[in-house]
């Protein structure tokens, strides 16, 4: 089966997408509104995979480095870049929601 990926950015202008509608699979009841995607869902697929593997390794960067076959500082630098991205996304989210999140 085709693994459809969650679209994160507008294919036309590149801006971040928001969720407008949820629908119950069983009864088809729909809920509409403006829902911001959670920060982790807004990361690129490879970044999400990195976070999942880090969890699998219980947060061990050494374990993650061994798993990827790269050095410890390479993994640490990747994590630092990801932390900076998550911080920027969190700040952006605070700006757009006026300091209130709807999660």
């Amino acid at each position, binding site marked *: 089966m085709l693994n459809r990926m969650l679209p994160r950015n507008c294919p036309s202008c590149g801006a971040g997408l928001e969720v407008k509608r949820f629908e119950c699979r069983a009864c088809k009841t729909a809920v509409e509104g403006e829902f911001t995607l959670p920060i982790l869902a807004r990361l690129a*697929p*490879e970044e999400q*995979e*990195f976070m999942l*593997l880090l969890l699998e390794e219980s947060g061990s960067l050494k374990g993650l480095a061994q*798993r*990827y*076959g*790269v*050095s*410890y*500082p*390479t*993994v*640490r*630098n*990747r994590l*630092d*870049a990801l932390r900076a991205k998550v911080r920027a996304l969190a700040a952006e989210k605070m700006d757009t929601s006026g300091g209130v999140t709807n999660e």
Partner: protein
Amino acid sequence: MSNEAVMGRAEGKRLSTWVFNPFYYIAGGQALVAGVVAMLLAGVLNAVTLSHFDGVLDFHTGLVTPWWVSMLEGPVNWLVMSALFLAGGKLLSTSRFRVLDVLGTQALARVPTLIMALTVMPPPVRLANARLAQAAMAAQSAQSPAANSVFQFIAPAELAMVGGVVLVVLMMVAWMVVLMYRAFAVSCNVSGGKAIGLFFALMVAGEIVSKVLLGLLYYATLN
């Protein structure tokens, strides 16, 4: 999803990464052991050929010293640069980095010194070097240097061979500088114009400090 894709790297660049940024794959203790072994081997070769790493980026032949002086030069240059890059990293980096990674990657970055030491190992090169030194001494002592042509001491083919060796050594120095920068960038997580500027400032500082320290070592052992 491939590991390299997850790590944000394009596939198919492995050889160039191994040559110019091996720290992507190796750092810490592994790099430290590999680098120190290469440094000590280069020291042994230098003790045999009377060659010296008499500065962070220097390689010269001819000075007669006890064997252990040749063995110490590589580690002195490495430790001077590691200490400077540690300080530079503390100044510029926003990441928490390990001292072991700075020491290990800087040790591995000095692997080209082993190739430099090997270039002057063949007997014909050592003979040509000795003749060249003889020619330089004769030119220094002569009233008119032009009267003492270098070709009285060394054949053109030998001079060309020495030129080839110098070219290889210069290429190795350039490679080592690239490796030292990549080691600094990866181990301290720094990049961009500031990192490059700081790197070259630290290289100049390292050259001065290592020259002074090794100069004191030569003075202490030869006087």
